[in-house]
Each structure stands twice: as structure tokens, then as C-alpha cells.
């Protein structure tokens, strides 16, 4: 027993189970609070993403939750889509602002990312996010490198092509899905 693999490694196995259970407990206890923080963050970004919006109302479209952006009078002025996908290092979670008819992108916000500090994490900077505002939502965007993008083009962050492509891919996928599934009649 002493020389066997189990005899040597049992503390590692026991600790592994113990730590796994502890992490599951922490996750179960804290995840509602973390989700509430993210929801607050999402709602507080809506006025910056949609011109004229003062608040948002959650709504189910297809199988995803989106936010209807409302102005002070309660009429719809745009849409905010939460969307996520794999980045270079970890998942990237975004908020995409669309105008009322879902014809143009009005803004972009990064809710969560763990990209390379100094390179990929510059997707959170305003300079990069502004490259999306005003783009058409009717055709997929493409990534260009080393030059300022024209219509339908987004210039990648220098040294972070993969992160930039991920963001553009997430935006294209979420916008196309929303345009297929969105409700026809907008109150």
C-alpha cells in the first residue's frame, strides 16, 4: 500500500474533492448576488448605449433575454442585446445597442472579459468600442488590420486580432439572431 500510487496520492485526491465541494458551495451561495450585480451594470449602461434612452425593460425574444430601451415617455427607442462568446483567453460578454428598427448599431459595452492585459483587454476602451457605433446592423461586420475601417469594417486592436475578431463575431451572431426573431410590432 505504501508504495502504490493511491498510497502516495490519496491526500491530493481527498483535497481535490474537498476543494471542489467548497467551490461549489461558494458558487451556489454567491451566484445570485453576482447575477444581480451584472443586471444592475447592464441596466445602468442602457442610456449610454442608446441615444435618448432612460431605462430598460427585460423581454424574452426567441430563447434570449434582451432589453427594450425606453425613453422618458415609455416608448421604445432601441434594443440592448446581451451576447457572449469565446475570446482569446476566456469568455467575452457584451452589450450591443441597436436602434428602434434594428437597422444600425448604436453602441457597444464590454460586461466581462479576461483578455491579455495591455493588448486584448483594450477591447474595453472607448476608442475601440466607438468603431461599432453607427455601423449598419443589416450585414455582418468584418475586421480589418492596420487601417481605419470604412463602412461595415472594424479596425482591430493592435496586437489583439483574435480578441477583436471574437468581439466582431459575437456582435454579428447576436445581431443576426435578433433580426430574425425580433417582434414585428414594436410598442
Amino acid at each position, binding site marked *: 500500500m505504501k508504495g502504490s500510487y493511491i498510497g502516495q496520492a490519496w491526500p491530493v485526491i481527498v483535497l481535490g474533492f474537498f476543494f471542489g465541494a467548497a467551490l461549489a458551495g*461558494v458558487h451556489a451561495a454567491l451566484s445570485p448576488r453576482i447575477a444581480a450585480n451584472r443586471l444592475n451594470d447592464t441596466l445602468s449602461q442602457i442610456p449610454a448605449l442608446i441615444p435618448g434612452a432612460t431605462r430598460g425593460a427585460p423581454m424574452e425574444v426567441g430563447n434570449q433575454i434582451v432589453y427594450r430601451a425606453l425613453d422618458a415617455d415609455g416608448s421604445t427607442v432601441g434594443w440592448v442585446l446581451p451576447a457572449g462568446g469565446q475570446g482569446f*483567453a*476566456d469568455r467575452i460578454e457584451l452589450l450591443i445597442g441597436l436602434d428602434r428598427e434594428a437597422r444600425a448599431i448604436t453602441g457597444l459595452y464590454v460586461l466581462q472579459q479576461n483578455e491579455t492585459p495591455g493588448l486584448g483587454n483594450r477591447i474595453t476602451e472607448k476608442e475601440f468600442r466607438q468603431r461599432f457605433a453607427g455601423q449598419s446592423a443589416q450585414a455582418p461586420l468584418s475586421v480589418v488590420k492596420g487601417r481605419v475601417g470604412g463602412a461595415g469594417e472594424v479596425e482591430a486592436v493592435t496586437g489583439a486580432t483574435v480578441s477583436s475578431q471574437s468581439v466582431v463575431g459575437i456582435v454579428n451572431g447576436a445581431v443576426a439572431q435578433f433580426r430574425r426573431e425580433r417582434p414585428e410590432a414594436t410598442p
Partner: protein
Amino acid sequence: MSDRGNDGPTPVERFIGGLIPENPVYRQILGICPSLAVTNSMEGALTMGGAALFVLLCSNVLISLIRPLLKPHLRILIFTLTIATFVTIADRFLAAFLYDMSKQLGPYIPLIIVNCVIIARCEICASKQSVGTAAADALGQGLGFALGLMSIATVREILGFGTWFGKWLGWRVIPTAPAEVWSPWIIMILPPGAFLTLGLLLGVFNILTARRKSA
């Protein structure tokens, strides 16, 4: 008292050692990545220092408790497993209770897993000494690390933003002035400012220690 028969430094020596004589940032030059990356604001430095202190304390205590079970060829695996668990717990707590800081620090909190200060303390102290000594060692090293971060952040935030704890307490150190009188040194917020500050403070620290030795 119970440590009298042990080899190695006493709890008090361990605690004092971490603060200045063996300071992680200025003496061991460990944990330099966070020292450079999160020190452009006092809030970032304090959050990182607190998270590292928590992980250090929990890991040191746990490793010290199970030290009779450690096998030489499996000890690094157990250290890493322990540290990764406590880092994940710290990361979730920050996301739940300090959401803004969690977002601002981004990947640097998960990166505490690879902070050499912690695995070094597990190896040097916790795997060889009693729980009390290991806890004192963790407190000393953790506070020493936090002091290192906060000294760098003090210089960078005051020169770069003109504030100290600007986000939490709103303390303004340098009054806002017209651009021709004083404008904030943007470079201090950016990575070069971190290297310049760390280098200069390290130099000051070395001069002071050399003076004390020769006196």
C-alpha cells in the same frame, strides 16, 4: 511558546520579517506583475493587497495543518491546488461584494494563482512550521506586499490623477489648476509610470538600508 522546539524563526520574527526586512516587493522582488499592473489607484492596490493577504493566510494555514501528509514530489501539486481554490473563492467574493473593483482588476485577481509570493511562503514556511508561525508569516508577508503596492500606488495616483483614494473617498491632493500651472502626469497612470515608480522606490529603499547598515 509551543514553537520553541521548532527549527526556524519564531512567529514574531516571521511577522516582522515580512513587513520590511524581507518585504516581498522591495526585498524579494516577488509579485512584481501585480505591483506594476494594478497600482495606478489606491483602490486597486488595496483590493489586490487584501485578496493576496486572504489567499496567503488561508493557504499557509491549510498547508501547515496538512504538512505531515506532504510528499516531496507531490507538494507543489498540493500547493497549487490549495492556492487556486482560495483565489477562486476570493475572486467570487469580489464579484459579489466589490463588483466595480472586480471588473477593474479583471484577470489580475485570477492571476494571484501564479503570484510567487504565495507559493514561496508555502514552501519556505508553512510546509515546515506550525500553524501559528505560518499564520504570522502570512500576515507579515501579506501586509508587506500590500504596503509595497500601496506605496507605489500613492506616488502614481497622486501624480497621475492628483487624488488619493479618489474613487472611494474623493480626496484631492493636488488642487485642479489651469493646464499652464499643473496638469496631471498621464504617464504615471500608464505602464511606464509603474516601472519608473517601482525603480525609484526600490532605489530609495536600498539607499536607506545601506545607510542603516553603515551607521
